[in-house]
């Protein structure tokens, strides 16, 4: 539900995986097959000679070093920056605001309702239920609009569709209190707490 860049993750992982896979297979072939080794000598020798000539032609005037090294260092720094940005993109999206609206009444200003309102109200409503081992409510920001995620941990043997219908009744009540339709995702899950707790017998 968060805004992890799923497509970007897949593309970058695929590209990196292919590069590593190709390098690894090449190394194994180099060690195992002699004919690959002779081809590699011819091919990489040519490439390396070309690169060396490039470095020779880009020396600082009067000094043995090439300024191409600085370019390489800068390019690698840029790559590092991109990687840090990529990591920073993972798992963002939690928010704290449930609704924000301009108030057309006599008092000037906006009305803002924090996500804590929904979280506390729903938690309170779900607390006493015998068929739930736990419930968490979180507010997310999905493409600019606030959304709620309700995670329910029912005890063993609880019918998920009945539970979902009852909780959606609670959500409708919450929506009428807030005065705004909020997209909701209900996730009925299982965890260690539900697996080892007793089954619900009476309902």
């Amino acid at each position, binding site marked *: 539900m968060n805004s*992890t860049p799923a497509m970007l993750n897949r593309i970058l992982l695929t590209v990196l995986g292919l590069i590593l896979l190709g390098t690894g297979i090449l190394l194994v072939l180099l*060690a*195992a097959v002699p004919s690959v080794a002779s081809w590699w000598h011819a091919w990489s020798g040519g490439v390396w000679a070309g690169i*060396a000539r490039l470095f020779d032609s880009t020396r600082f005037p009067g000094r043995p070093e090439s300024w191409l090294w600085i370019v390489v260092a800068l390019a*690698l720094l840029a790559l590092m920056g991109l990687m*840090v940005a990529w990591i920073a993109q993972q798992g963002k999206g939690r928010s704290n605001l449930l609704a924000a609206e301009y108030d057309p009444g006599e008092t000037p200003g906006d009305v803002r309702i924090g996500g804590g309102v929904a979280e506390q109200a729903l938690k309170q409503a779900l607390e006493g239920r015998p068929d739930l081992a736990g419930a968490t409510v979180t507010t997310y920001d999905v493409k600019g609009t606030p959304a709620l995620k309700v995670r329910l941990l029912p005890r063993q043997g609880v019918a998920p569709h009945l539970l*979902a*219908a009852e909780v*959606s009744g609670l959500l409708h009540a919450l929506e009428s209190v807030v005065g705004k339709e909020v*997209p909701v995702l209900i996730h009925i899950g299982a965890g260690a707490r539900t697996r080892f707790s007793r089954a619900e017998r009476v309902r």
Partner: protein
Amino acid sequence: MRRVLYRETHSSRAAVSVAAAILVLVLAAYGVLESGVHAVGQPAWLIEPQVAAQRIVDLPAGISPLLLAAIGAVLAMLGLIFFLNGVLPGKRARHLLAGAPGEGLPAVVVDDEVIASSLARRARLAANVTPEQVMVVVSQRQVLVNVRPTSGIPVDQDRVLEAVRDELDQMLLEPAPVPRVNVTASGVIGA
């Protein structure tokens, strides 16, 4: 909302992505260090870049083939992990709950484990056995109900199937799995 549902029914690549990014980050940091040191004309930290390149060019020589093959195998394995993580669909063991039309149900995602325990309860009541005698396996398109009857008391397979199908019809799962009931030949004594 469709995007959110996709998110919830497919596994996240965030952890693998962070690992890959850190790997590239470390390699790039080393590259920056060496090329920066070289650019200002200082001696290299670990290995001179030109020397390293020359070693790579005449590779099969200068290193034992066993070590080279091992390094290659490790790299290929790492690459395969990243590649498969990027390409495979990565479906989670979850179903969507469609809900009856007109009911106005919000988007609901259910773990297969919850569905299985609910179906097991229903099958257990229909077969009149204890919870330990029923095992339900829920997969993307199939529900398999295994019942071990109490020895001496036969279990009506059709009744169990009917009960499970009724429960599934009420759930309206998406994608809808097909139920199958399997009553084992050997019974349980004293249950």
